[in-house]
């Protein structure tokens, strides 16, 4: 299978701030790659390099085999980009926005007009098509922005945090739209700091931190890398965190993660035996009052925690 997106040793520094530090990546045609990482990990910088907006200091990037640095114009005619914030013109109508993009892709007057109407229909914006975008909701703007990325039927699509700032309902609606796109055979690179989003949409996930890929695989592969299941305990009062932690340390297979604020403790455990019953008994012996106790499969949150030593949502760009 040929590669739609490739990166070899991409390096990008902004002054003393390191954005990318040798990023490698390959995305086969027709697949979805999820770029997962905290803010400042280098996700947006990678997208900006692939979409010709930014030149890397070092390294190679290719889209459909075309070198991004030397043949930027050719790359631009095969890609679609939807950025972190909806880049649509507030004062134009939804239709005018798409038609403008179509004309700038040189689709020709009639094709551009037809394609714009078709997309508005497909993205459930047909009723709002001739209203100015300033009257749109956040979810509608995002859908329009995504539609704008698809006007020229690009074979490679870049979505930079497509659902950031959306309410849960709009997020799920947008996921459906993206899943449809993928079903039509496009190659997609998607950045996100939502683990459930990567899990839901991507064939493969590249976890990036401090400008490099630190893990790569399917969601299941990544989860099995961290091994075992997770036992979660919520205790009734702060003074019970310490005795509960010592119980979990004895039972678990790794370090106990403690959230003081929510009085929530997590520990990886082996999936054999009667873990739940044992834990409950041991906690009872220490007179720990338990509010909640669950055993669950590891999430990508756990993956991130294990791989990087910090939570995915936390800011790391200082």
């Amino acid at each position, binding site marked *: 299978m040929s590669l739609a997106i490739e990166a070899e040793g991409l390096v990008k520094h902004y002054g003393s701030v390191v954005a990318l530090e040798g990023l490698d990546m390959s995305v086969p045609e027709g697949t979805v790659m999820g770029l997962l990482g905290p803010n400042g990990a280098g996700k947006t910088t990678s997208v900006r390099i692939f979409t*010709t*907006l930014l030149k890397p200091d070092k390294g190679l990037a290719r889209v459909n085999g075309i070198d991004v640095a030397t043949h930027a114009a050719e790359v*631009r005619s095969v890609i679609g980009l939807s*950025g972190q914030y909806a*880049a649509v013109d*507030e*004062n134009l109508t939804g239709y005018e926005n798409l038609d*403008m993009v179509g004309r*700038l892709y*040189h689709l020709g007057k009639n094709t551009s007009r037809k394609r714009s109407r078709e997309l508005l229909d497909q993205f459930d914006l047909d009723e709002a098509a001739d209203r100015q975008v300033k009257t749109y909701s956040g979810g509608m703007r995002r859908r329009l922005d995504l539609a704008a990325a698809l006007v020229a039927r690009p074979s490679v699509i870049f979505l930079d945090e497509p659902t950031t700032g959306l309410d849960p309902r709009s997020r799920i609606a947008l996921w459906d739209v993206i899943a449809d796109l993928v079903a039509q055979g496009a190659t997609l690179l998607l950045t996100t700091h939502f683990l459930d989003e990567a899990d839901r949409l991507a064939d493969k996930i590249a976890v990036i931190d401090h400008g490099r890929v630190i893990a790569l695989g399917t969601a299941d592969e990544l989860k099995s890398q961290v091994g075992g299941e997770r036992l979660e305990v919520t205790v009734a009062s702060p003074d019970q965190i310490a005795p509960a932690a010592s119980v979990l340390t004895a039972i678990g297979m790794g370090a106990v993660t403690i959230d003081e604020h929510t009085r929530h403790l997590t520990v990886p455990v082996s999936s054999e035996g009667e873990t739940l019953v044992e834990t409950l008994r041991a906690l009872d012996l220490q007179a720990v009052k338990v509010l909640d106790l669950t055993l669950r499969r590891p999430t990508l949150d756990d993956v991130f925690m294990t791989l990087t030593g910090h939570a995915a949502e936390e800011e790391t760009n200082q």
Partner: protein
Amino acid sequence: MTTIASALADGAVVAKRNLLKIARVPDLLVFSTIQPIMFVLLFAYVFGAEIVIPGVNYREYLMGGIFVQTCIFGATITGSGLANDMKNGIIDRFRSLPMARSAVLIGRTTSDLLNNTLVVVIMALTGLLVGWRIRTSFLEAAAGFLLLLLFAYSISWVMATVGLTVSSVEVFNNAVFLVIFPLTFIANTFVGTDGLPAPLKVVAEWNPVSAVTQAVRELFGNTPSESAVSDAWPLQNPVLASILYMILILAIFVPLAVNRYKKAASR
């Protein structure tokens, strides 16, 4: 399509978008015309009574200066528009499209030129109301208006460069007015240059604003008697000097602005 034809076609698409904005947000146009009208009235009625320029009615003398000042103010919308597009990520979208690299700037400066044309027309009408008169032939007057608009157009490219360099619209507005006020006041805009202290006088005589103002006054027939005009070369040959200044400004700022656009990174 050839490169130039394609750049112009793309530029037209962008210009249409900007003009739609003017039509949809008419307050923008209202405020950009109220300001020059206010200046005409303030100078004509507040200062006009006290300022005497030998050999000419002050209100007639004043109009040339206010026309030029208005064109510079009007050109600032090129920079604030671009700074705003950068902030909204629209420049990123344009830069990821297979369109000509210069098209966004061509479109922007063209739509702003049309905007400025409208502003100049409104100002001219206000001027006529307060007693300004054109005392030359139709052709000379037309040349005067053409010169004004070309000057506005070249200043648009300066503003484009600044707008693409600063980080926000607010910074643009503050930065640009720091330059515009001295530029338009250390000149023959409102009073002659002869009364200025020596170093300022030289700056004023060689200021492009003075050359264009003097040229416009001559083309409209609003010049004071010979003795009141400085004998510095740009003011003795104002039309030629204005054209040379514009060529120089465009030669410097067109490539500079296109270069800034290529490198522009949002935020």
